[in-house]
């Protein structure tokens, strides 16, 4: 068989189209735009690097300072704990909102209404200064003198705990809506099939509905986590010693506001980038069972190699 290009031009009529070489579309406009964008980006980066007002030496000095690391640790655990509280409580509230009981539904709606309807900053300050509102936390039977527990509020609500409560409860209000949308996105036939097998509602929710709802829940929850990471900066108003609090402490002394904010931004950016890894993993895990065609990265698309990729569909995605 002749496969040289010269032969191909004459023999093309009698060859079946499967054997013909494919010439991908050349997107010249894209190349021009890409060059222009990269040039602009390089210009901006250069000017930032040369700008003396940014004090890159100060940035370098503080980027790995102990105080900044301490703040970073607090920011990280605060984010993780607040998200855990938010997702756990949010799932509970979502289930309550979908419940047939009007009392549970009403309570869940009230919760979302209050915590989503007031500014987070106000909620943080509220929890931070709750000790001024209620001197003691008491657990007992309402409207009687019987108390089982009585603690001073300020010893219970340290700034870190107050920050966690504020962020977690606020997140629960948003997460509950995301989880509710996720649950409602699952075909009701799924729950019916589970029920017809003798599965009880709680088991059905846990084994059948929630795992499928996850596909819808994960992408917005990824967003929420990124938001949370940055919103922890707000708790600096009650000095919870997170990254932002510590940055502020530093620039209050050395007056290098902008360089210190650059330090903060670099760290937030790094953490947000890292968060993409677990999200991609979770999306793959809960995407099991959905057939997808092979994904082509934008770079490969632009280079025009997407023409005739072998479609890899059934390579057991376990």
């Amino acid at each position: 068989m002749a496969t040289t290009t010269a032969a191909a031009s004459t023999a093309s009529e009698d060859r079946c189209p499967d054997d013909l070489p494919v010439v991908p579309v050349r997107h010249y406009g894209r190349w021009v735009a890409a060059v222009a964008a990269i040039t602009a980006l390089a210009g901006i980066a250069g000017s930032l690097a040369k700008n003396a007002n940014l004090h890159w030496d100060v940035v370098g000095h503080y980027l790995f300072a102990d105080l900044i690391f301490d703040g970073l640790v607090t920011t990280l655990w605060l984010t993780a704990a607040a998200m855990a509280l938010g997702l756990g409580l949010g799932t509970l509230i979502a289930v309550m909102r979908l419940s047939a009981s009007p009392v549970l539904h009403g309570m869940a709606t009230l919760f979302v209404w209050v915590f989503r309807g007031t500014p987070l900053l106000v909620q943080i300050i509220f929890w931070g200064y709750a000790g001024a509102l209620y001197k003691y936390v008491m657990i007992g039977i309402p409207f009687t003198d019987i108390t089982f527990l009585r603690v001073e509020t300020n010893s219970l609500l340290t700034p870190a705990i107050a920050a966690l409560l504020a962020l977690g409860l606020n997140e629960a209000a948003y997460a509950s809506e995301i989880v509710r949308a996720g649950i409602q996105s699952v075909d009701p036939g799924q729950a019916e099939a589970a029920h017809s097998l003798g599965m009880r509602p709680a088991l059905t929710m846990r084994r059948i509905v929630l795992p499928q709802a996850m596909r819808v829940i994960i992408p917005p929850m990824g967003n929420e986590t990124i938001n949370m990471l940055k919103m922890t900066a707000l708790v600096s108003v009650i000095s919870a010693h997170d990254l932002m609090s510590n940055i502020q402490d530093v620039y209050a002394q050395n007056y290098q506001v902008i360089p210190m904010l650059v330090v903060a931004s670099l760290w937030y950016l790094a953490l947000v980038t890292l968060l993409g890894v677990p999200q991609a993993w979770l999306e793959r895990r809960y995407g099991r069972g959905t057939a997808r065609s092979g994904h082509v990265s934008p770079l490969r698309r632009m280079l025009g190699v997407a023409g005739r990729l072998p479609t890899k569909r059934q390579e057991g995605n376990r």
Partner: protein
Amino acid sequence: MTTPMLHARNVRKHFGKVEVLKGIDLTVERGQVCCLLGPSGSGKSTFLRCINHLEKIDAGSLAVEGDLVGYRRHGQRLHELREREVAAHRRDIGMVFQRFNLFPHMTALDNVMEAPLNVSKVSRAQARQDAERLLEQVGLADRAGHYPAQLSGGQQQRVAIARALAMKPKLMLFDEPTSALDPELVGDVLDVMRQLAADGMTMIVVTHEIGFAREVADTAVFMDEGVVVEAGDPRQVLLHPEQERTRAFLSKVL
């Protein structure tokens, strides 16, 4: 006389103001196959769903093997069953849906193992062995590791049948099991059902497959607008119907 598998008396059900079931009487003996036919909207699915309490009946009584569906009789009162008790009843009744309703996040094997593992609490090894045997029975031993999205409609429906059988039900309900399938896939599913009937399973099948009904059913029931219009020997009902409405319907589907 043994108690029949299903005994329905004057079953009524309405959604809002619309009465969908207007007093259904039906008895299905053990080991029998009963085919339900009728035009769209006649209440066939609703009746089937009432049998395993996916819908609550408004009046009349519905008993499976002598046990009332959804209620317990205590003297002169009926007590509503708790979720746990309803779930326990449903284990004995398998259901196959028109749209398969397989769990898409689980492989075929996991779909079949799910309920035995988590409801009947059998050991994993036992559940696996049973599930593999059931998949083989429906001719899908080689598809155990596939996800529903990787199976054809007919294959999915056969996995759904295996999944229902995994709970060792006494009664199987089929709601138009083949009407979402391409014509050439219908046969495989009907073969599995035919074999099941031959093995003595009690089955109530909503279907428009007249040939299947004529061949396999012990009774054929024609429903229209929430009432049983005609019931009896399938050869009688399907070949020589007495009622004009039955005749009109059959002339359309045949």
